[in-house]
């Protein structure tokens, strides 16, 4: 049990509470588990708070605990995710016209972005766990590859590959959706 003050702990936690919650929400296997995961992670962090070295990166420290809680709690529930996104090979087959159209499309009207936006979360959820967590930690939480590799206990190159593959898969999924809605032509 931490001897340090609860106020000090809560003051450090408050600015990152949304990050903690949304990461748990995206990584939880069950429907309503995010709250349970966050509670377990926060109470574990609070019990271990004496081990946190003041003025070091609290967010990285908290996320290491959060990731462990996610592993532990996810094991208790049956996964009911749909099929994962297929691997994308280095796709030089995509023509320049499509690249240009795709790029322009993302610059396009608000309703288009909204349409993609709605499907974005579903596409993210269909990434593999490693890809999703590496992408979220990098893109959303701003951790470096080095920090991610330390948090997840994987080599830095592997973390980098997961981020890269996640980006490719997301991009292809969103492009497919745009083609489905007639917003983009399939390349020859």
């Amino acid at each position: 049990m931490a001897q340090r003050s609860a106020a000090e702990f809560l003051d450090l936690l408050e600015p990152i509470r949304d990050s903690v919650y949304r990461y748990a929400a995206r990584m939880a296997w069950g429907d309503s588990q995010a709250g349970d995961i966050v509670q377990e992670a926060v109470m574990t962090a609070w019990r271990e708070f004496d081990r946190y070295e003041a003025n070091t990166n609290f967010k990285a420290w908290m996320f290491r605990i959060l990731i462990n809680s996610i592993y532990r709690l996810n094991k208790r529930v049956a996964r009911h995710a749909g099929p994962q996104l297929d691997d994308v090979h280095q796709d030089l087959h995509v023509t320049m016209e499509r690249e240009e159209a795709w790029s322009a499309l993302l610059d396009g009207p608000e309703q288009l972005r909204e349409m993609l936006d709605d499907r974005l979360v579903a596409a993210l959820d269909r990434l593999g766990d490693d890809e999703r967590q590496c992408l979220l930690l990098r893109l959303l939480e701003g951790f470096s590859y080095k920090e991610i590799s330390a948090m997840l206990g994987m080599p830095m190159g592997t973390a980098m590959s997961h981020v890269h593959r996640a980006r490719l898969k997301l991009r292809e999924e969103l492009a497919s959706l745009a083609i489905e809605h007639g917003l983009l032509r399939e390349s020859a």
Partner: protein
Amino acid sequence: MDCQTARKWMSPYLDSELETAKTFEISEHLRACECCRHRFDAERRVDEMVGARLKREAMPPEVWSTLRREVNRSHLLHRLRVPSVVAAAACLALFAMVYFKSGGSSPSRREAFQGEWALYVNEAPKAEEYISTDEIEAALKKEYGLSFSTSRKDTHGHPIEVIGARHVLFGSQPALELRLKCCGKVAVITAVHQADADKLPEDLRELTKSAAGRSVSENGVNVRVDSIGATEYFIASEHYLDGLVGVMKDGRA
């Protein structure tokens, strides 16, 4: 650099994780290759969309409020192992028992209550149990949404003196106890979150109903329970409570 190599490194390039020489090579390639430039722009926009979409997900206020409470509660449970800190609840529980005559309140029970009350009001909490005067207002406001006033116009002219305030366990629930003197008699105001008050032992829960907004008396001790926002507070004293009712204020504004 060819397109295949440039695309292989595009992701760490976007993340600014490449060494300077490689970053320069890719920048040069993007300047020269329109197709890869479009690809790079599209990837950057997908990143922005993912970021913008997911950053809209926030921790629900009730989850944050539960976390705060659980951390504070666990802190208190750990810190408060001094038997005296349960005195407020024990004393008021005895008061309720005598008042409601639960279990056939006998004279010995009444004596026990008087003894408990005397011990309680005469108890001198250790100095380190009290929070500093500066912290009293902050703790009341931040944790319970209350403020307090000892101004004569709020106390019907009764002189009120603050002895101190401390975090206590009240029927195993975390609470803040404000110890005062009203016309020289000790008065104790114990603030507890509504949600925690609902978990108090049955006699104390009964007392919160019977003494809600009115003073009830037993063996010369007066007790009254008021609430402001989501906080309930018990006022107990041998002094009439009319001067003490105006002490607690809504501190949420």
